[in-house]
C-alpha cells in the first residue's frame, strides 16, 4: 500500500508547490527591472540627501507620486549645480517639433487596477516612503523590499488604526 500512496502524495505536493511558487501575479513588484538610464537613488537620496518629494513632486498632492520631468533633471544637471554632461542631450527633448522621444522608465511597483492606492493621505499621515519602498537611499538600482499585497496594507492599517473599510481602496 504505502509503496504506492506515499510517492504519489509527495509528487502531488511538489507539483502543487511548484505551480504556486512559479506563478507570478502580473502586478507583483519586480526585482529584475533594468532602467534605461543608470539612475542611482543612493547618489541622489542617500549621498546628496535630496528629499524624495523634490523629484516625486506630486506625492503629497495626488494619488501618483509622479516621475520627475526631464526639466527637473536638467534643473540641476543642466546648470552646473551637479556634474554630468547631459546638457547636449536635453535640447532635443525640450523641443516638441523634433521626432518623439521618451525616457521609458520601467515600473518597479505596480498595483492591480481594482486597488485605488493614493500616496497623498499616506504622506499626510507622515508615513516614511521607506516603510513601503524600503531603504531606496541605499540602493543604486531600486529593488522591492516588501511584496505590496493586501496583507501588507492590512497589517499597517491595523497597527496605525487606519480605516479597514473595503471601499477605501476598492471601488
Amino acid at each position, binding site marked *: 500500500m504505502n509503496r504506492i500512496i506515499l510517492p504519489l502524495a509527495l509528487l502531488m505536493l511538489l507539483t502543487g508547490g511548484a505551480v504556486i511558487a512559479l506563478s507570478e501575479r502580473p502586478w507583483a513588484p519586480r526585482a529584475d527591472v533594468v532602467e534605461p538610464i543608470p539612475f542611482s537613488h543612493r547618489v541622489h537620496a542617500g549621498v546628496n540627501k535630496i528629499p524624495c518629494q523634490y523629484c516625486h513632486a506630486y506625492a503629497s498632492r495626488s494619488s501618483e507620486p509622479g*516621475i520627475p520631468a526631464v526639466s527637473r533633471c536638467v534643473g540641476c544637471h543642466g546648470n552646473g549645480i551637479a556634474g554630468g554632461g547631459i546638457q547636449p542631450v536635453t535640447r532635443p527633448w525640450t523641443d516638441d517639433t523634433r521626432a518623439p522621444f*521618451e525616457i521609458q522608465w520601467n515600473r518597479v511597483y505596480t498595483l492591480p*487596477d481594482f486597488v485605488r492606492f493614493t500616496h497623498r493621505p499616506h504622506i499626510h499621515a507622515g508615513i516614511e516612503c521607506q516603510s513601503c519602498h524600503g531603504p531606496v537611499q541605499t540602493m543604486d538600482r531600486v529593488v522591492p523590499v516588501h511584496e505590496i499585497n493586501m496583507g501588507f496594507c492590512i497589517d499597517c492599517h491595523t497597527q496605525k488604526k487606519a480605516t479597514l473599510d473595503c471601499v477605501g481602496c476598492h471601488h
Partner: protein
Amino acid sequence: MREGPSISRRAFIKLAATATAATAIPGCEPAARKLIPYVVPDENVVPGVPSFFATTCNECPAGCGVVARIREGRVIKLEGNPADPIGQGSLCARGQAALQGLYNPDRLARPQVRGSDGALRTVSWDDAEKMLGDKLAAASKAGKDRVAFFGGPQGPTFKKIAISFVGACNSSRAIFYEAINQEPVRVAAKTLFGRRDLPTYRIDQAEVLISFGADFLETWQSPVELARQYSLFRTPQKRGGALTIGRASYVGPRLSMTASKCDEWIATAPGAQADVAWSVLNVLVKNGKVSPNSGFDLAALGKAVENFDPAATSARTGVPVETIARLGEMFGNANGALAIAGTDDSSAHLAAMILNAVTGNFGKTIMFFENSPGEETSTPDEVDAAVDAMRGGEIDVAFIAGGNPVFTMPPSERIAEALQKVPFVVWAGGVPDETAAMASLLLPAHHPLESWRDTAPRAGVRGLGQPVMQPVFGSKPVGDILLAAAAKISGTKLPWATTAEAVKAEWLALAPKADDTNPEDFWVKVRREGGLFEEQHLSALTLDTSPFKAAVPTAAQMELSVYVYPHIFLYDGRGADKPWLQELPEPVTQLVWDSWAEIHPETARKLGVDKDDVIEIKTEHGAIEAPVLLESTVRPGVIAVPIGQGHRAYGRYAKDVGANAWTILAAGATYAEVTARATGNTRKLVSPLGKSDMMGRSIVEAMSIEQLAGGVVPTSEAEEVTGPSEMYAPWKYAGHKWGMTIDVNACTGCSACVTACYAENNVPWVGKEGVDNGRIMSWIRIERYFPNEEEAPVAPQLYLAPMLCQQCDHAPCEPVCPVFASYHTEEGLNGQVYNRCVGTRYCENNCPYKVRRFNWFVPEWPAPMNLQLNPDVTVRGAGVMEKCTFCIQRIQFGELNAKTEDRQLRDGEIVTACQQACPTRAITFGDSNDPASAMMRRRDDNKLRNYRALEELNTQPAITYLRDLYREKGKA
C-alpha cells in the same frame, strides 16, 4: 500603450504619464509597466488629480455652459457650468453624451477623397487642402457666388469666419442650417412686434402655464433652463394665501414626458393646437379679461377670433367646450400666466403671444431683451435659394460642415439631387454621415470640445468654448480649414489666421472699455468662467395690431395623421451615433435602439394592426416603416413617430436603426395626413421595462396638492409602520452616514442622471439585443408606471421617478453574499467589492429594488472610447455584480481632501454624478448624521411628502423620496 498612433505626441505622453489606464478585467491584465515622464511638466496637469475647464455645450442651440473634467489630458466627464445662467450647473443627457461624439470610434481619422469609382481613398492633409484650394480658386474665378458654405450654426465668431471665407471665394452664399429651428416663433414675433428675435421665458414667474404642443422639458428651445423654471413653478408655495402649485395644461396630440408632468393633457389632433389657442383667446376677449393697457383694440380682436367660438372649436377639435372655457378662465384670472407654443405653424405661436400680451404678461413671464444676438440660422428662404442654386448647377464647390442636410432636410428640398449637381462637394465633420456619402472630399473636423468657439444663445449671455483636450484623431478645426483655404485664394489679408485667433480677437473686443482693465486679465476671466454673463435689459415693445383686421382662418381637418416629434435624446438625429443615448429608454415609451409608431389601441383596431406589427406610414412626401406601439398615450387618429433614427450612415451605432421620420414631412412641418397599412412583417420593440402597473406597491408615491395643503397624510402611510423587534443591534455610524432625498415632484424623467451615471461609473452599454435579453447595465433608471384603473382618479398622469440603490440599513443583499463582496460600509453604504465578487448573484435575487447589475460578458469600449473611462472607478469584468454606491469614488475624494486639509467635510462638498446633472435639483445628497445638511433639511421641510420605497419590507433605505404632487381631478 494601447492608445494608437492617432493621438498627438503630447497627448500620448500625457496619457502615459500615469500608468494605471483602466483595464478590462480586474487582475487579469497587467497594469502598464512603463512610466513616461513629461519633458516639461504642464502646470495644469497633476497626474492623478482632475483639472477642470469651462467650455460650452454644442449638442443643441440652447447653448448651456459646461465644465469638462480632465484626467491626464483626456476629458472624462462633462458637467454643467454653475457660472452659466442658462444651465446653472446642470447638463441634460444629450450634453453628457457629447463625450461619445468626441471619442466616437467611427470618426473620420484622416482626409479622404472619393475616386471616380466612388471608393474613398485616404490622403494627406496637404494634398486634401491643396485639392480644396485649387477647386475653390477655379470656382471663384469662374464667377460670382459659385462657392457655397453650408453648415450648422457654430456661434457668432465661426459665422464671421464662414462669411469671410465665402467672401474670399467671391461669393456670398453662407448658409447656416438647423433642422429644428424657431422660425415660427420669429414669424409670430415679427407679425406682432416687428422683430425676429426670440423671447425669453420665466415659467417660474407664472401661476398658470399652457403649452400648445411645446415639449419644453424635452427638446423645445432651452430644456435644462425651462425644466429648472418648471420645477420652481411646481414647488408647493403660498399663492393668494393657499398652499398650491402652478397649474399647467398641455395641448397636443401625444402624452409627451412634458405633458405627463402637467396637470392635464388636452388631446388634440396635430395642428389643432392653434385652433384651441385662438379659442382660449376668444374666451378671454368674451370675458373681457383683456387688460386695458395691453394696447389691443377689443373689438378688432373679437373680430379676429370670431371663428373660434369655443363651441365651434370644440366641434372642430373635439376638445370639450368647458375645457376651453376653463383654460380661458384660468389664464385670465392668473396673477402671472404664460402660454407657449411648439407647433410648426406660426398661427399658434401668434395666438400664444397675444394671450400673453392681452393678459399683460410681457416683461413678466415672457420678455424681449435689448440687443439680443443676431440670428444664428439662415431663414428658410435663404436655405431654399441655396439648394435651388445647387440644383440649378450654379454652384461649383459646396463646403458642408454640420447640419447633415441629406438626413434632416424634407424631401421637398430634393437636397440629394441638388448635391449631385454640384461638381465638388466638400464635407467636414466627425462621424461620416449621409451627407458625407455624397461628398467628393471628406475632411476630419475637430469636435467642438477640441476647438475654439463661442455661443450667443440670447442677450447678455455669451458662452466661450475652449478646447478641453488634444485632438483624438488627425482632425483640424473647420474654422482653420476655411481660413487657410480663404487665405490661399484671396490675396486680400484676412483678419485672422486661425479660429483661436479669431475667437480671442472677437472676445477682446467685448472687454469692458474701462482703461484700467487689462484685456489679458479679461481673457483669463472669461476662459475661467466659460463666458461673459451680463445684465439683460427689457426692450420696449411696439405692438402691431394690423394683422387683426381680418378673421384668422381655421386649419383643415384630417382623418388619420402622423405626428412627428424630435426624440428627447436623439434630437434631430445627431444623437444617434452615441450608444448612451441609444440605450437610454425614452421616458414615456421606455423603448430603446429603434423608432416606433405610437398608436391608440382604438385606431390600431381600425387599422387592423397589433403590437410590433411593422406598418407603412405614407404621406404625400414619402413613406417609412415602423413597428406599432399600442398605447393610449397618443390621441386616437394620430400616429406618433419620433425623429432621430433611420440613418443610412453615421457610424456603427446609428446605421440601419429604425426609420427616418424627416422623410415624410413637408418643409418645416411636424405633421401630415397619412395612410397607414400593415406590411405583414413584425419587429419586436425592445424595452428594459417589465410591467407598467405598480399594483399598488409603494415604489413611486403621489399625493394631491389639496391633501398637502390640508395636511392630510395619504392612506398608504396612515397605519404606522412599526419596525419589528430587531435581532441585530442597529448600525452605529461614528462619522458620516450618507443619504439622499429625491423629490419625485421635481423629477421630470429627463434621464440626465442616468447618462451622468454611465459616464461617471464606467457603466457599459449592451446594445439592442442585450437590452432585450435583460442585460441592461444602468445603475440608476427612471421608473415609469401608468396609474391603473383604481389609481387613475387619484394619481398623476404618469409615475416617473429615479430608482437606484437605496443603500439600505437592513440590506437584503448583504447577509446573503458568501464572500463579503457585498457588505455594509462604515458610512452606511451597501458597498460592493468588485474584485471580491465570485458571482453567485444571490444579492440581486434578494434585492427588492432590483438595482444590482451583473456583468454577463466582458464589457467593451471600442478605442478610443476607452479614453473616456473614469480612472477612479474599477472597470468590472465578466462574472461580477456591480451597483451604485453613491459615487463612492467622489466620496473618497472629498473625504481625503478634507482630511489632508485638516478640516471638517463641508455639506454639499460631495456631489454625486446624478445629483450634479439633474436640471431640476430633484436629488440631494448629504450626511444623515448632520441634521443641518441640505439633504436632511429637505426631508424635514417636506415631512408630509416623505416616503421610502417598499418601506413595509423594513429594509430601511438611506434614500427618502418626496411624494409626487398632482391636482385632484376636476380641479385642474
